[in-house]
């Protein structure tokens, strides 16, 4: 088993079983639907056109040239249209941007690191990783210009920066090709939304759109919430309203309302139209509040209980709650008219017996904020009482929503 660089292979002579050089390597092809890491074929430039050498025909890679097992007569002609589902390393990977899921950033590929392994009577070639460092860059620059031996001597002195293939997420703007190349951004989805947002912010608009079209709606919604506001708008505008609605539905109502509020009327109407009726109502309600009032910052996703409910009722409700978990660190108690009467920290629920009434678990007088208060007043209350969440009440004292700490922090940063 030995290592090869893509740059070393490109242009290398290809010999068939007769030992004569029949052509030169033009491309390496990968077929993700079968095997995401093994090279499926070589595309060889011959005097009579491009030919395909499949992996089973490759005997070995010696001395920077390729030895094949059969005669060149068996090599098929290469037709670009049949190559739709193939990833061509030189065209699609070299010098393109990829997402490094481990390092959580976008990088450009300088070279590709390959492992050659002898299996039975032929040699398989696997992608080990992409080279994004100086070694790949220098090799690209000097290959062909500087003779091989001194070049390799120089290259070994440069520390490599290689991203293993399993951490590479490809970016493809054509939706049909994404399907063929099996690009699902599964690895990207597992990152924290804030990291996904950072990555997405480094991409060009078309690539950004491609990522948001492919990510699972929930992940997309969370990531979108972390993206720069101006970019949020351009991303949502670039998606079609159906897809945009799918994502907006998964966002917390307050974040969704903020986003839709910034869009041109036509676009936000289109998106609201595609949303499911309940979600639409929730968001519309929030949209009606002035943007920089306390009510404009709140979310309507919360759990409230009667003071006579027990801990086990609460736990049951918690288990069935499908809103954002960040709104669960305090449970609010309301009377039969929906007026706010108490607040129970989640910790108290966890520590109490199942049959305890929630009214016994409140800590002190419940602090709330009137809907008409402005953002700064809300922030002051947060600070004064050291809160993580602040319930918002209307003029009658009815609980209509809650403001969470992250909203307050975002607001404070804007004003500083």
């Amino acid at each position, binding site marked *: 088993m030995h290592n090869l660089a893509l740059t070393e292979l490109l242009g290398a002579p290809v010999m068939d079983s007769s030992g004569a050089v029949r052509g030169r390597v033009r491309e390496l092809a990968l077929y993700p639907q079968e095997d995401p890491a093994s090279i499926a074929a070589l595309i060889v430039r011959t005097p009579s056109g491009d030919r395909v050498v499949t992996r089973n025909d490759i005997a070995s890679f010696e001395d920077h040239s390729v030895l094949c097992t059969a005669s060149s007569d068996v090599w098929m002609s290469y037709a670009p249209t049949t190559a739709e589902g193939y990833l061509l390393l030189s065209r699609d990977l*070299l010098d393109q941007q990829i997402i490094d899921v481990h390092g959580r950033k976008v990088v450009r590929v300088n070279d590709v690191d390959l492992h050659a392994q002898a299996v039975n009577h032929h040699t398989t070639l696997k992608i080990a990783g992409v080279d*994004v460092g100086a070694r790949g860059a220098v090799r690209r*620059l000097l290959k062909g210009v500087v003779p091989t031996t001194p070049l390799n001597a120089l290259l070994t002195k440069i520390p490599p920066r290689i991203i293993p293939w399993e951490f590479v997420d490809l970016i493809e703007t054509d939706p049909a090709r994404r399907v063929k190349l099996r690009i699902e951004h599964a690895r990207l989805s597992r990152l924290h939304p804030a990291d996904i947002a950072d990555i997405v912010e*480094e991409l060009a608009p078309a690539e950004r759109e491609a990522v948001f079209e492919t990510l699972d709606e929930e992940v997309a919604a969370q990531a979108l919430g972390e993206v720069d506001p*101006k970019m949020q708008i351009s991303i949502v505008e670039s998606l079609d309203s159906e897809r945009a609605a799918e994502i907006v539905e998964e966002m917390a109502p307050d974040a969704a309302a903020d986003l839709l509020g910034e869009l041109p009327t036509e676009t936000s109407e289109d998106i609201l139209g595609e949303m499911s009726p309940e979600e639409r109502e929730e968001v519309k309600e929030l949209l009606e509040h002035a943007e920089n009032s306390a009510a404009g910052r709140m979310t309507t996703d919360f759990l409230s209980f009667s003071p006579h409910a027990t801990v086990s009722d609460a736990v049951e409700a918690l288990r069935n709650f499908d809103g954002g978990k960040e709104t669960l660190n305090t449970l609010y108690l309301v009377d039969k008219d929906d007026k706010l009467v108490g607040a129970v920290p989640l910790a108290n629920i966890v520590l109490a017996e199942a049959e305890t009434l929630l009214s016994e678990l409140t800590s002190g007088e419940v602090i709330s904020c009137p809907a008409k208060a402005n953002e700064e007043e809300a922030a002051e209350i947060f600070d004064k009482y050291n809160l993580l969440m602040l319930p918002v009440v209307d003029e009658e004292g009815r609980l209509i929503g809650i403001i969470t700490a992250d909203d307050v922090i975002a607001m404070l940063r804007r004003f500083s």
Partner: protein
Amino acid sequence: MWKSVKRYLRRGLFGVSQPQKGTAFSLLRLRLLTFLAIFGPGFVTANVDNDPGGIFTYSQAGAKFGYALLWTLIPTTIALIVVQEMAARMGAVTGKGLSDLIREEFGFRVTFFTMLILGAADFANIVAEFAGLAAGMGIFGVSKYLVVPLGAALVWGVVVKGTYRPVEKILIIFSLVYIAYPISAFLAKPDWLAAMKDTVIPTFSTNSEYLIMIVGLIGTTITPWMQFYLQASVVEKGIGKKEYSLSRWDVVLGCIVTDIVAFFIVVACAATLHVSGQTEISSAADAAVALRPLAGKYASLLFAVGLVNASLLSAAILPLATAFNICEGLGVESGVNKRFSEAPVFYWFYTALIAAGAGCVLIPRLPLIKVIIFSQVANGVLLPFVLVFMLLLINREDVMGEYRNSRTGNVVAWSTAIVIILLTIGMIFTS
């Protein structure tokens, strides 16, 4: 991308935040605010084109050749508009910077070669900015050995600490000083008929100095680095295909303003220096004579203020832009918002550019003005390389789609490139 240049350019000169959606009246307000918010790239072009390189090249052109070179302004302006528009369009349609596009379409080797060329031209320009600073403060009798290191440290510190935005605004406002040129030009009572005639009727000459001057004039008006800067700036502002048409106007306006100022600098110098027989500009004080009709004995002061201001602005922008472009092109981490340990190559490179640029100016008895004009000639010589790449990219369907170049655009841009190459060859052969 340019995360931190983004911080500087994000909201345009006037720091406009996202406008409210709504009624028809708001629509007008929206368009106006959007225009102002986008009103960065072209506007900055106009200002940065009047850097020391510009001022001295136009001044020398007027001093040495009188009105004879005025005819180059109209074709150069047209070429400038076409080229800048191409850069803005590529940025708006692809959402990528020029070095990124070159890398993706032409590969690493070509990118490296282009970055070398860009680096060379930019370095010459950086030296010119510091030379301008030295020359300007020289009018006040302050030694360059004091001014240049201070200026370099100041510029480095301001940019790295991130207090660039307010400083940029101040500097841009100060560059309104150049209104002095048109006024001075009128007061100098030039032979308007001769000037107008020379603006439209070309004078050809195979005099080597004449050719060098033309290459310098083109190079100072259409700088290679400006195309990279403009495209990146358009991308950072998030100007997409929709907002692009407004951005176009900003670019065109900026180019026209640039050349109007250039016109008046040439005329003012022609009417004062050339007419009185002083055809060589060997110091800032010489160039300041062009402002005498307006400012009398304060001409030098006025000129110095404008020059120092322009030098500082360009010295702040150019090394940063160069470091970004080259690091981006080579795929190296870059960004002033990153800590030193996260982007060491970028920071070292940026610092080296400033240090070396300023250092060159400190060479004893360096002919500052000649160096400045030489840097603009270097721009002119290296411009065709950048132009050719831009043309190859902008005509690719898979890159630009339906926003490919029109035939007119291609004709103008290709002819510009060819003309410059011919002029350069001519310039080399006649000298």
